[in-house]
């Protein structure tokens, strides 16, 4: 990874109900992330808004459907669509997940866990290589949220760092996912952060989680449907101490609050980033 785009800046993942307010925003420190697949359309207002927004703010394309760990029958078409969007919008960041979502002809519309094995690593690296070759640039891959432990030969940070070393991609560290994995599976976040090379981290995500209806607080769900938890804020501060002032993105995909509420949460992240930046200076 070379220079970090959007360094020191906090952004929001953009939902259609906030298009107009986002376009009226005058704060130049903002940037917006969108789910790439939501723009797999030929035309219409959704693309029009994105075009207008891209004139005013940096964009990040965050993919949720490539299934890099198990590429499917429709992977070539997926790459074709992502390539067209990346070519048109030239986003500051492009990211995907170290997960799988599809098998053969079926798409499961979820970010499913890979076993941390050497075979799975080979397959993930192949998916990343094909993705990066298709769009002609490197991407960031995001750590998964874990609900239970699958058989593994590698620890997750080693698994991800090996993918980075082999493919030249970078990492998107989702702090909420780390916290969920900590609570559900006992993952040691401090140890995890210390095993990630700060130089390869290009973005950090924060979000809110929810509790499973059936298993309550013994199973945290990566719902993106609540404000960021205090513990996640605390781990964000630790992550930024480790990684420096990498861009931070506030995700919210469910129970969408007002744009003002999202901005208030995002501004907390910006304040944290400012404190990191000033320490560096």
């Amino acid at each position, binding site marked *: 990874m070379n220079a970090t785009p959007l360094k020191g800046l906090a952004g929001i993942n953009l939902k259609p109900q906030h298009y107009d307010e986002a376009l009226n925003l005058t704060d130049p420190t903002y940037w917006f992330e969108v789910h790439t*697949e*939501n723009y*797999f*359309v*030929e*035309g*219409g*207002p*959704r693309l*029009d808004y994105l075009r207008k927004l891209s004139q005013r703010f940096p964009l990040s394309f965050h993919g949720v*459907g*490539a*299934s890099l760990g*198990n590429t*499917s029958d*429709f*992977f070539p*078409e*997926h790459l074709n669509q992502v390539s067209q969007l990346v070519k048109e919008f030239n986003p500051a960041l492009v990211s995907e997940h170290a997960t*799988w*979502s*599809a*098998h*053969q*002809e*079926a*798409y*499961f*519309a*979820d970010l*499913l866990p890979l*076993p941390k*094995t050497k*075979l*799975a690593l080979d*397959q993930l690296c192949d998916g990343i290589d094909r993705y990066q070759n298709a769009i002609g640039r490197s991407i960031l891959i995001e750590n998964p949220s874990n*609900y*239970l*432990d*699958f*058989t*593994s030969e590698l620890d997750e940070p080693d698994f991800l760092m090996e993918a980075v070393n082999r493919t030249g991609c970078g990492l998107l560290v989702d702090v909420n996912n780390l916290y969920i994995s900590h609570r*559900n*599976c006992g993952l040691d976040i401090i140890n995890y952060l210390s095993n990630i090379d700060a130089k390869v981290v290009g973005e950090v995500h924060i979000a809110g989680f929810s509790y*499973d209806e*059936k*298993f309550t607080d013994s*199973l945290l*769900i990566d719902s993106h449907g609540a404000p960021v938890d205090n513990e996640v804020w605390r781990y964000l501060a630790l992550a930024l101490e480790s990684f420096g002032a990498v861009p931070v993105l506030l995700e919210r995909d469910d129970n969408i609050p007002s744009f003002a509420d999202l901005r208030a949460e995002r501004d907390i992240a910006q304040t944290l980033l400012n404190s990191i930046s000033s320490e560096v200076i």
Partner: protein
Amino acid sequence: MNPLADYFNGFSNYLKLGSDDTLADFLETESDARFMSIYRNGFFKSCQSALKANFPSVLNLLGDEYFSQIARVYVQNYPPKKSTLIGYGEDNFTEFLSETITDLPYLKNFALLDLYWLKSLNSKESTVWDSESVTQMASENVDLSQVPVSLVASSYIVTTDYPVLSTWALLKQGDGLTKHIKLAQEEESILIWRCSGEVRVRVLDKLDLVLLQSLATGTKLETATLNALEIDKNFDISEYFSELLQNRLLTLQV
């Protein structure tokens, strides 16, 4: 033997069917296998939500609980075959509804209008033949009647077998119905198109249908006019042409 292939096969079977004997081999012993349900719930919830978003009038007609039940069966039988949920259900959800809920024979027509509304919204842009361009061409003495034109890419002519448009419009907005739907079986033709970023709909009479169908296939205005004159010998293309331009429905064929 490829353990990774076994893993994906086992996991996929679990997601589709709710159980798979091989999956336990891939779990660490201390893991609570009951937590696997989170993945299956997530898969169904995402797909059900997509169907609700894609078929809002059907959702409002059936109610959330019944729709969710029906949608779950559909997801199980027809999981998405593309890596986006935009348009999920376009392959066969209308037929599935028709086969599954036989006591509402008009239901598939609501689904059809939802589907074409969405197609129109996300369809590619056409270069609209607008008043300005027409004026320019007229000033250059172009014979407009001989210019090959067609309808913009976002336009669809949909024929339903019940007259559902007005009820569909209410349901799509989320308005509840104040009385039971009573519809006599009778065909209704509807034009759906996108104009200035907004999807519009209108019922077509016989003349509209003949004229717009000729234009949809791509033709000269003169030919479309001759077809319309067979329906109404007093038909005047000038007023109709102006309306087509205002609604940004025409594009020049290249």
